[in-house]
């Protein structure tokens, strides 16, 4: 009798344990992926950044030396950072503003809107390498379609990828190819704005440009904030297009920060140094994002949000 009870208790306990475990089993693929492929490498790279860590050979702890060398002795760090910032200064506003204009256009009730939406989003699903191949062909100095078209208009096109004055712009244009994603987010935002707001504005004689500036943009500001931040992040992570299109040249005019990290890691096999580079990039993105977020209280309007100062006079 007593053994039976003990057995029952044991099996019940086992049962309860399995019951508790079940949900974790279901989410385990994600948890494991996160631990091994995101959090793990993250922590690992932080540790690496304090080491002289060649791919083959002795690893030695060097403290903050990697950071020190990067900031004080390596001019390429500052050069590549400046190129990335220049790129971002073009890319972020163009990406957001053009994305917004496209979204506004595609939000009009005209024939074939669905087709246009698909066409504009299509580049965003093309793989980076294929995209770069297309652009290499477009930009080709002598045989490229872009210079051919410019030639038809009587303009002698520059050597887009070979001239340091034009190469960065060429990369900005090529990376804007993918603004379909931005457009899609803003288009969704546009469609959630009640149409009565526009009707009320129309009734009181508010012209179309003023409706865009005073109604659409404020109502869209949370989405705009999101696209500004993601654009900044993707500007700093710009690698594929430059790597494949120009390889950082000519005269290192398109030598992006991400490429600098890439070279340190996989060309010079300085893993510790590259890890330190990455952490600096992470900090820069973090600070920039926080600055944008901080500024957002002045220009982003959330439905349902009530600022403390406003609530106070209730």
């Amino acid at each position, binding site marked *: 009798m007593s053994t039976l009870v003990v057995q029952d208790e044991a099996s019940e306990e086992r049962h309860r344990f399995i019951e508790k475990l079940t949900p974790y089993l279901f989410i385990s693929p994600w948890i494991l992926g996160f631990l091994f492929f995101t959090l793990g490498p993250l922590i690992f790279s932080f540790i690496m950044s304090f080491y002289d860590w060649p791919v083959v050979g002795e690893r030695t702890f060097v403290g903050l030396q990697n950071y020190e060398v990067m900031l004080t002795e390596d001019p390429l760090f500052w050069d590549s950072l400046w190129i990335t910032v220049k790129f971002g200064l073009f890319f972020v506003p163009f990406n957001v503003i053009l994305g917004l204009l496209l979204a506004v256009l595609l939000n009009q009730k005209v024939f074939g809107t669905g087709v246009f939406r698909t066409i504009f989003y299509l580049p965003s699903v093309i793989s980076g390498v294929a995209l770069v191949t297309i652009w290499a062909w477009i930009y080709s100095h002598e045989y490229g379609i872009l210079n051919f078209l410019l030639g038809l208009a009587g303009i002698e096109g520059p050597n887009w990828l070979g001239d340091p004055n034009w190469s960065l712009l060429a990369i900005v244009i090529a990376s804007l190819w993918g603004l379909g994603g931005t457009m899609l987010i803003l288009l969704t935002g546009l469609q959630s704005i009640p149409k009565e707001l526009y009707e*009320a504005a*129309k*009734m*009181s004689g*508010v012209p179309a440009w003023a409706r865009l500036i005073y109604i659409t943009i404020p109502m869209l500001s949370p989405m705009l904030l999101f696209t500004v931040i993601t654009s900044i992040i993707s500007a700093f992570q710009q690698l594929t297009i430059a790597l494949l299109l120009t390889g950082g040249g000519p005269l290192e005019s398109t030598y992006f920060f991400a490429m600098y990290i890439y070279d340190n890691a996989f060309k010079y096999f300085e893993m510790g140094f590259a890890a330190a580079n990455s952490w600096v990039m992470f900090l820069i993105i973090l600070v920039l994002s926080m600055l944008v977020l901080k500024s957002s209280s002045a220009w982003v309007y959330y439905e349902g949000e009530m600022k403390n100062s*406003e609530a106070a006079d209730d």
Partner: protein
Amino acid sequence: MAGVDIKQLYKSFGKTEVLTGIDLSIRDGEFVSFLGPSGCGKTTLLRSIAGLEEVSGGSVRLGERNITQLPPAKRDIAMVFQNYALYPHMNVYKNLSFGLSLNGVPKVEIEERVQTAARILQISDLLKRRPRQLSGGQRQRVAIGRAIVRDPKLFLLDEPLSNLDAGLRVSMRVELASLHRRLGVTMIYVTHDQVEAMTLSSRVVVLNKGVVAQFGTPLELFYAPQNLFVAGFIGSPKMNMMKVNANAINEMSIALTSESISGSISFQLSAPVQQVPEQPHTFGIRPENVGLVEEAESHMSGNVELVERLGTESQVHVRLDSGQGLTAVTRGTHPVNMGDRVHLNFPAEHCHLFSPEGEAYPRKLDGETRSLIERQETAALCIA
């Protein structure tokens, strides 16, 4: 200020015809309601007047001007939307002044207009708030204020009270009426609530399936509905209706008979009718006009299925011997009970008769009712 003249207005969305030949003439300074069930076209008609819908045919005139092809802003019309349509990111002052400042109205004048409107609507202390921080009634005031500051020739209101709770709706109704008196401007009001339409309007347009079923004063609609639709739509509980045979006795009266009517009902006409068709007619009587009487005086009999006691009145649901249901309204203290056998009488002056096509015969109203309707009509005319 100006009246509105609508001629042969058509509007279709693709193949669906929503408005089919609307003719209306609204007088300067009038308060007119568009009343009808969902999908009758009342909101579309309002939006067509506003210029928010492009009409498929016909014309709209405001005062002396043909505004059919003008953009909304050029029409001198202000509209209050059902969900208020306040700009959520602007404070009340900005909401009121936004349109004005973009149309080059001087700052001093904007300030003056906003303050005046705010005073009229008692929202002066709310000008710094965002719509989010306002109650439903306050938002409604701001929406009306946005119309007032524009000083338009015509106000359009699209179910403006439907988002408010019952108590607030009644008090806002009273305020709207006094606002109309104060401003003296023509107002068109869309609603599906007949109480709102009846209490606010000098005249009501009843719409059904894109056509005007009747356009008249509230009492006219109630006591002299021109067709079956209006008869069934106006009044609560609904008018009782049943099929009858009609035979002309002479030029001014018709005898109504059916299996369930004992004897006949004599319907008195107010104008001579040449011919009465043979097909079955529809007889109508409002529940409050049905009398509970002794068997000898009755037209019909039946059993009481349910008594709903509302205090001031009781609604008695009767199953007639013919199997049809009928509702009678009695005084609240009437002792009638469920299961009772009752005998019903239909006073001649309260009977309605509709032709097989659903058109009303001209009925003879008692003197009191007639003078009431006439008084309302004169009042409506006086506004102009």
